[in-house]
């Protein structure tokens, strides 16, 4: 048997700040064979990044390897000197981090930085180094590498930067590549390309890789073997296909059940959240780490000792850390939470609560240039519905939300709230009723709550401003009701935001937004900063609040999986324009706008019963500075028509069915012949029903 590239045995990583040690990794063993890609998945706090940091010996002042061994090609990483370690880092072991900007020196040109790698590590001559750098930039499919060499990092987009970082990592031909959330900061379309590129580069070079991510779907696409981490331990390890088709550990099952399925939505089946919070270890556990959150735990069995990681069947490569891994069927859906009532027939009952008419927002930069963030948008938000706005960053979807609530004012067009145009009114110029009608939930749980205020104080303030409560006592009473409604215990009222977890903070933010019983709530990426298991609980809470108050929800998101689950109708935005609008069923099925099609093709999927069509998308979202007279998507469109029509003429918004419209030059008849992006896998049971029903005409 060939010696493994990386061999980790019984690794313990601990951090000491004030007080008792924090155990980040407990007894982790891991073996990587040459050329293998191993995926380490887990939520924040599971210890997955600490593993990578331990391999690089980057644990910092407070962290240390408390026990266990790390061997890289026979070299003891825990024991070697700092000097030898420097020789390994960057040449034989390379690491790619989440944020490409931190990996590049902002004061040096890209060319200088890349050539340095070769002249330093390999002693190559500058001329030869330059030729190899150009080749490697071509390998990562960067157009015009000569120009890239002369650029500074800030002159490149996030996707381009990450490509440069990847080419830099491969330049020294490392034997081991550590990837810590390498695409989490990127848009979904860019993420797909970068991940495919990584896989291709790694195959070409025969590099061994440890891929660390919270994203199960991404890991499924990239890795051969996957380990699921929980509370500093691997709780399940299996070949990727096995893990996703036959998960055994309750945590893995829970995580997969948290993810919305393509063939369902809130009207078909509700998502099943994992209760409780990610465990934090501070001592050697004397019971199963997952016990507090496990629905299948038994006394006398699960609470006596932490189970060992063992094979499911003897000799199997499928390992699981559970005493009763296979005595119940897969839990997919929640039997107790009923699916929501089917949506009313289109346009039957619901009246619009908000109408956007030819809305345009232009930002004038100090240097005279103009950014058109929203161009001629028209849409309506119906009472009680969920309207999702999807698109890449820079598509103008957040700007739309900010105009509706009055954080920005429109340059042209109308926002009709009731029978009043509020498009030009900042919030403070709106009437009390208008302010009360629209509220917002923000993306970042760490900045959404004022750290100087207790939860109770901020909710009481919101109630006093937005509700009709005369006395302080009434406000306090109402505040406690509100906390109960978002499933937070009453003692949270006296806590500061720093004492809450991300999910709890977002619950408080939801309570605050619903304090005045608004008719419209704008949620701008409310779950994108949260962990998988928490996301689901927050989504379910949003749905429950929306149902209770009959609130219209404008759900701004780039996560198409969640959008598929939550949305009644969907708006797809690209470069400040609506390119497709329609019911969720219609948008997720042909006919697609070519942009919608590429978004769906880039969407990470965990469902093993579904095959996803692959689409090449060239280039990145166009700068909003340059408004072409034609279609904004023309430069990237895989279905661009021959001739100049896409470049020169603005495409028409054509109705494809009732309530479904597509802005494209391609005739609808042709778009209808496009095959669906998602197809049931051959031989899969329970074929998905989604993706093949064209919207009812």
């Amino acid at each position: 048997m060939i010696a493994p590239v990386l061999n980790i045995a019984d690794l313990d990583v601990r951090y000491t700040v004030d007080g008792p040690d924090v155990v980040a990794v407990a007894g982790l063993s891991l073996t990587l064979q040459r050329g293998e890609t191993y995926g380490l998945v887990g939520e924040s706090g599971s210890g997955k990044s600490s593993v990578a940091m331990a391999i690089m010996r980057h644990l910092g002042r407070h962290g240390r390897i408390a026990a266990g061994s790390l061997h890289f090609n026979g070299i003891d990483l825990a024991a070697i000197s700092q000097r030898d370690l420097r020789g390994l880092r960057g040449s034989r072991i390379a690491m790619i981090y989440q944020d490409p900007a931190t990996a590049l020196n902002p004061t040096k040109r890209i060319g200088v930085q890349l050539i340095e790698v070769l002249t330093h590590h390999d002693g190559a001559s500058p001329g030869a180094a330059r030729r190899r750098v150009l080749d490697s930039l071509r390998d990562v499919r960067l157009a015009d590498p000569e120009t890239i060499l002369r650029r500074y990092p800030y002159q490149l987009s996030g996707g381009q930067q990450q490509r440069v970082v990847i080419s830099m990592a491969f330049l020294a031909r490392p034997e081991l590549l550590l990837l810590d959330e390498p695409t989490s900061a990127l848009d979904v379309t860019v993420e797909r390309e970068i991940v495919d590129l990584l896989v291709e580069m790694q195959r070409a070079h025969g590099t061994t890789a440890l891929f660390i991510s919270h994203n199960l779907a991404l890991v499924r696409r990239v890795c051969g073997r996957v380990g699921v981490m929980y509370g500093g331990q691997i709780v399940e390890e299996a070949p990727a296909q096995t893990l996703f088709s036959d998960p055994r550990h309750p945590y893995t099952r829970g995580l997969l059940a948290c993810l919305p399925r393509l063939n369902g939505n809130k009207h078909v089946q509700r998502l099943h959240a994992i209760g409780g919070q990610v465990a934090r270890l501070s001592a050697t556990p004397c019971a199963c780490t997952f016990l507090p959150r496990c629905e299948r735990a038994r006394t006398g069995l699960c609470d006596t000792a932490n189970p060992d990681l063992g094979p499911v069947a003897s000799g199997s490569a499928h390992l699981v850390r559970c005493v009763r891994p296979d005595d119940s069927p897969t839990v997919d859906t929640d039997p107790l939470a009923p699916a929501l009532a089917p949506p009313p027939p289109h346009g039957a009952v619901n009246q619009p609560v908000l109408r956007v008419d030819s809305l345009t927002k232009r930002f004038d930069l100090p240097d005279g240039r103009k950014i058109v963030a929203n161009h001629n948008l028209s849409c309506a938000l119906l009472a009680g519905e969920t309207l999702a706005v999807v698109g890449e960053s820079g598509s103008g979807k957040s700007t739309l939300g900010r105009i509706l609530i009055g954080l920005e004012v429109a340059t042209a067009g109308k926002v009709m709230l009731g029978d009043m145009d509020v498009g030009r009114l900042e919030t403070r110029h709106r009437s009390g009723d208008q302010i009360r009608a629209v509220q917002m939930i923000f993306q970042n749980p760490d900045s959404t709550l004022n750290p100087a205020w207790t939860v109770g104080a901020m909710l009481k303030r919101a109630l006093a401003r937005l509700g009709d409560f005369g006395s302080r006592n009434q406000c306090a009473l109402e505040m406690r009701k509100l906390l109960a409604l978002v499933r937070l215990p009453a003692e949270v009222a006296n806590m500061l935001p720093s004492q809450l977890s991300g999910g709890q903070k977002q619950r408080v933010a939801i309570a605050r937004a619903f304090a005045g019983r608004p008719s419209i709530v704008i949620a701008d990426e409310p779950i994108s900063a949260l962990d998988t298991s928490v996301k689901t609980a927050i989504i379910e809470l949003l749905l429950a609040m929306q149902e209770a108050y009959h609130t219209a929800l404008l759900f701004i998101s780039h996560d198409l999986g969640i959008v598929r689950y939550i949305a009644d109708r969907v708006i797809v935005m690209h470069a400040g324009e609506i390119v497709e609008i329609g019911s969720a069923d219609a948008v997720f099925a042909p006919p697609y706008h070519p942009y919608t099609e590429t978004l769906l093709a880039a969407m990470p999927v965990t469902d093993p019963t579904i095959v996803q069509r692959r689409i090449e998308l060239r280039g990145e979202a166009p700068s909003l500075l340059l408004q072409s007279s034609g279609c904004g998507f023309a430069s990237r469109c895989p279905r661009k028509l021959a001739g100049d029509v896409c470049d020169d003429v603005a495409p028409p918004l054509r109705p494809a069915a009732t309530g479904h419209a597509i802005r494209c030059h391609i005739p609808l008849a042709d778009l209808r012949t496009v095959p669906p992006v998602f197809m049931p896998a051959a031989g899969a049971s329970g074929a998905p029903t989604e993706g093949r029903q064209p919207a009812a005409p």
Partner: protein
Amino acid sequence: MSDIGRPAPGGLDTLQFDTFATGVPSRAPRWRAIARSPVALVGLALIFSWVIVAACAPLLAPYSPTAQHVTAIDMMPSMHHWLGADSLKRDLLSRIIWGARPVLTLAPLALIAAYLVGISLGLTAGYYGGWIDDVISRTGDVLLSFPKIVMYVVLISTVGPSQANIVAAVVLVAAPGIARLTRGLTLDLKTNDYIAAAQTRGESAIFIMAAEILPNARGMLIVDACMRMGYTIIAIGVLGFLGLGLPPPDPDWGGMVREGTPMLIVFPHMALLPCLAIVTLVLGFNLLADGLQDLQSRA
């Protein structure tokens, strides 16, 4: 075997609240947290000693600070005059003890006034931006470009030394720096979503500045105030040294240094002991500032 720890399988009812992170310090240091910083404790001890000395001056001082003693023949420290006497044969210990009073009333008073002005201007400039920011910031830049000591000397020598004038001078000298700091903090803090959330509640600008932004700038401002206390005490000392301090015969540390300087070679204690008083007090504030800053970066 029975099922334990079993959360109800409902999507929303499964939440447990047993894992709150407790005891996490908030960003502004609590006064009790100072116990964790020895540096801050030493600083605080120095400051408190001087505060007690100033408060109990009538009890602690052996003599009146203005009384002349013919018994202090050689003006050197003796049994009767522990720290000796000054050139006018007044007891040096009593004068230093009484001299703590003007500095410990004047400096905080002046700084509170300077902070009121500086914070208001800084919040306004940072929150509104635009031309309001331009006017406030450029005016501040002009004031900051003068050497501080020159400003003090010119101001006091123009309007004459008095408590009110010294307070006014400190405001004029310190407020631009405070405003600049507050403006920077405001620019940073106002990008937080909780400010947008307050705006979407229709809160007034004054409420947002005072209740949403200011409490989060508090920690930095307190550290800055401690540093500035040190500078202000030095400035008041310098004014006294230049003869622009409080009018004699009341004791004033800066003035005492000035009176002692001509005899520095023969009687070094006359100038050095008041200097030492200034140094220990300033050091106390600087140590406290260092310690608080350290606590904040740890939190």
